[in-house]
């Protein structure tokens, strides 16, 4: 059982992209992915309506597809989500498909039940 911990969004650095490709490789190898926990600026990965140019990889869409295909939970840390504008009165207007806001306790639980916690984050 793996948990991934992602601290950067697609627009900053490369960690979010590497995390996505790593998650897809886990899926291909038949590993279980407990959840992906997005924290700090990484929560912006769950912001909807970010445009991706046609000749680039749409990292958010690929995360949403992974979640739909594998039923992997994509958690956005609530403390970070509040700072980065993902928790207005109607969060469903801002949060992309497949993501959900959750508390840090879920990272604690994920670490306890996972053999590996793999982190992804650029220096900030």
């Amino acid at each position, binding site marked *: *059982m793996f948990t991934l*911990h992602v*601290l950067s969004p697609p627009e900053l650095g490369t960690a979010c992209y590497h995390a996505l490709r790593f998650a897809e490789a886990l899926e291909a*190898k*038949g*590993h*279980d992915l407990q959840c992906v926990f997005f*924290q*700090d*600026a990484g929560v912006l990965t769950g912001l909807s309506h970010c445009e991706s140019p046609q000749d680039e990889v749409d990292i958010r869409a690929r995360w949403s597809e992974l979640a739909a295909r594998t039923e992997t939970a994509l958690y956005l*840390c609530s*403390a*970070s989500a509040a*700072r980065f504008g993902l928790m207005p009165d109607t969060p469903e207007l801002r949060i992309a498909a497949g993501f959900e806001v959750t508390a*840090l*306790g879920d*990272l*604690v639980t994920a*670490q*306890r039940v*996972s*053999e*590996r*916690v793999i*982190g992804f*984050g650029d*220096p*900030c």
Partner: protein
Amino acid sequence: MTDLNPGALAATERTGPAIWIQQHPSAGLRAQAGVDTALSFAVFEQSPTVVFANAGVCCLSVPMAAPAGRKSLRKLIDSFPLYDIEQIFIDGRSLKKYSLDADQLPEFAVVQSPGELSTLVHSHPAILSF
């Protein structure tokens, strides 16, 4: 490289993780996220091992700087023993690099050499890097 069977991951003893804080408090909310995460693991009685290394050691600087309108992390760190985090580990080399005075660290801080930190790294089942 031989691939392991997905079911055959070597079982590591599941104790609390190491929380590795490496970013300057001015660099963004990353160090804050690390401190929050350490407190969460402590609240859930998971005995996190908290390490400040590289620019992360600046979270401990005194006076309690509030860089760029943010709150000081030092006050929060000073409260760690209330959450049963009885020790924090500090990279001694980084203290020197950022001209910080070891005398001004919290009393429960333990300054470590790279070799000691290496031992720490290798004895944890998981490391959360911030």
